[in-house]
């Protein structure tokens, strides 16, 4: 990357990550032509974000398969593979618990998307996101309380308001049972899940490479009866968000989207969108320490607060703005002020809990 301006260097590194992940969710990914130096540069970023398994999936087929970086990728892939077995046990445990309380949860993201990849070690996940119908939520909470911390890995959602914009009753009605070994797991329909994955990617500013691979994997695994109207919904602004996420998967990772309603949008993404993702992908993710922690220990607050500045994607989504060509700065300011106001409203409660 010598000789490039710093800005171009950043984008080049993000593009390098995208190149390695291109088609990596497929059983037979495309051949990868990459220099050792390029692999060395991208490897820490892939390892850090859990995309190393996908890195291995591609590198294992090229001449760099015996490199040190490939060995690291493979090690991560093996670890993710055995972790997937453990997670399936956890999911079984959680579902048994909830069902014994008369709760039928809907599993989103995590295993529900990992199953779309050709190998379990390619898509690691940590927690288990379970959405329950609002009327079942109290029973679900009781179930979790009764587990005495044994199901701490569950991230319980009342409906899907934090994950999706569609009506949860409809999402739940369209959900289906799929087999995980001997266990039946309720997952969203392919249409709903693709939308949920797109929204999840955008809401978090697309910082994690895997999330865009998830969109690509869900997109390419859809069946011939996939209903785009159900997936995109009737709200034009929101359906445009989803179309843009699909467009990102096509432009950056080579996802096959030509025969979709999102194809046109993929070719006309707003100018700020691709650079935002490439920039995000070119640097290690910086943890955002919750601002509340500085109530106790204010030193370092000013240094930390810089990392809370939202990127244009998350700011636009949080402000429910359109993905158009206008500058994103107003959305970023608006989102920051909105979050600050929410936090200030919480301060008295946090102070009482100190």
């Amino acid at each position: 990357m010598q000789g490039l301006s710093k800005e171009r260097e950043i984008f080049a590194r993000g593009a390098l990550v995208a190149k390695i992940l291109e088609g990596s969710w497929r059983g037979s990914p495309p051949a990868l032509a990459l220099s050792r130096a390029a692999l060395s540069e991208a490897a820490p970023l892939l390892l850090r974000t859990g995309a190393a398994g996908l890195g291995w999936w591609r590198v294992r087929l090229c001449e760099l398969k015996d490199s040190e970086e490939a060995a690291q990728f493979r090690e991560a892939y093996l670890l993710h593979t055995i972790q997937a077995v453990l997670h399936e046990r956890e999911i079984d445990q959680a579902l048994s618990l909830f069902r014994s309380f008369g709760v039928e949860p809907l599993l989103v993201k995590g295993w529900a998307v990992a199953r779309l990849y050709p190998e379990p070690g390619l898509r690691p996940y940590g927690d288990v996101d379970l959405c329950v119908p609002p009327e079942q939520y109290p029973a679900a909470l009781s179930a979790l309380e009764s587990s005495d911390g044994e199901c701490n890995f569950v991230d319980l959602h009342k409906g899907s308001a934090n994950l999706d914009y569609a009506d949860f009753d409809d999402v739940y009605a369209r959900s289906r049972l799929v087999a995980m070994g001997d266990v039946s797991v309720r997952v969203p329909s392919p249409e709903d899940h693709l939308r949920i994955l797109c929204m999840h990617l955008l809401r978090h500013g697309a910082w994690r490479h895997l999330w865009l691979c998830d969109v690509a994997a869900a997109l390419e695994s859809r069946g011939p009866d996939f209903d785009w109207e159900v997936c995109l919904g009737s709200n034009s602004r929101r359906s445009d968000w989803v179309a843009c996420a699909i467009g990102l998967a096509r432009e950056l990772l080579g996802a096959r989207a030509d025969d979709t309603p999102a194809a046109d949008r993929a070719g006309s993404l707003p100018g700020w969108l691709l650079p935002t993702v490439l920039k995000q992908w070119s640097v290690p993710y910086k943890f955002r320490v919750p601002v509340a922690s500085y109530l106790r220990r204010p030193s370092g607050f000013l240094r930390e607060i810089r990392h809370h500045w939202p990127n244009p994607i998350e700011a636009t989504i949080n402000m429910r703005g359109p993905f158009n060509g206008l500058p994103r700065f107003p959305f970023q300011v608006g989102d920051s002020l909105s979050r600050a106001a929410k936090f200030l409203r919480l301060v008295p409660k946090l102070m009482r809990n100190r």
Partner: protein
Amino acid sequence: MQEKTRQQAPHARAEGLVSHETSDELLVYDLKRHKAHCLNRSAALVWKYCDGQTSVKELARRLGKEMDAPADEEVVWLALERLGKAHLLRERAVRLDGPAGLSRREVIRKLSMAAAIALPAVTSIIAPTAVQAATCLTSAMNMDPCSPAQCGLLCNSCMGNFACGQTGMAFTCTMTPVSC
């Protein structure tokens, strides 16, 4: 004599382990120590046959048959040593009649030149911790999203002052302030 027989018929540990077979390796996760191991084919075969009844000699015969090549007892002993170090045996196999005058390194060198099969390998899997999902139990408080990995980091280093629920490898930020 009874003691000798017991030690010569090693027993694989079963409790607290989760295993998964891939095309050419066996992955084992130790739930007690939270460690993952990768066994190559010869180590996996030796481990599979360690039932507390089968002698080292018989293990070598079975290994040779499965691998379709002659297997020396030394190879089995090497596997047992490595499996024992990884805590995958009920108790470490103790050799009562080791090769006189040879160090462990010399034995391995000799074996790697002479053995017709790949030497048993048991490797611990140490991969960098990836940043996991970006959701945590913060939505109820409308605060910035954090991640389970972040929760782990914060709580382990006592920077965030929040209690962290952990089961196995999963972290959950409880967002309950705690004193360190």
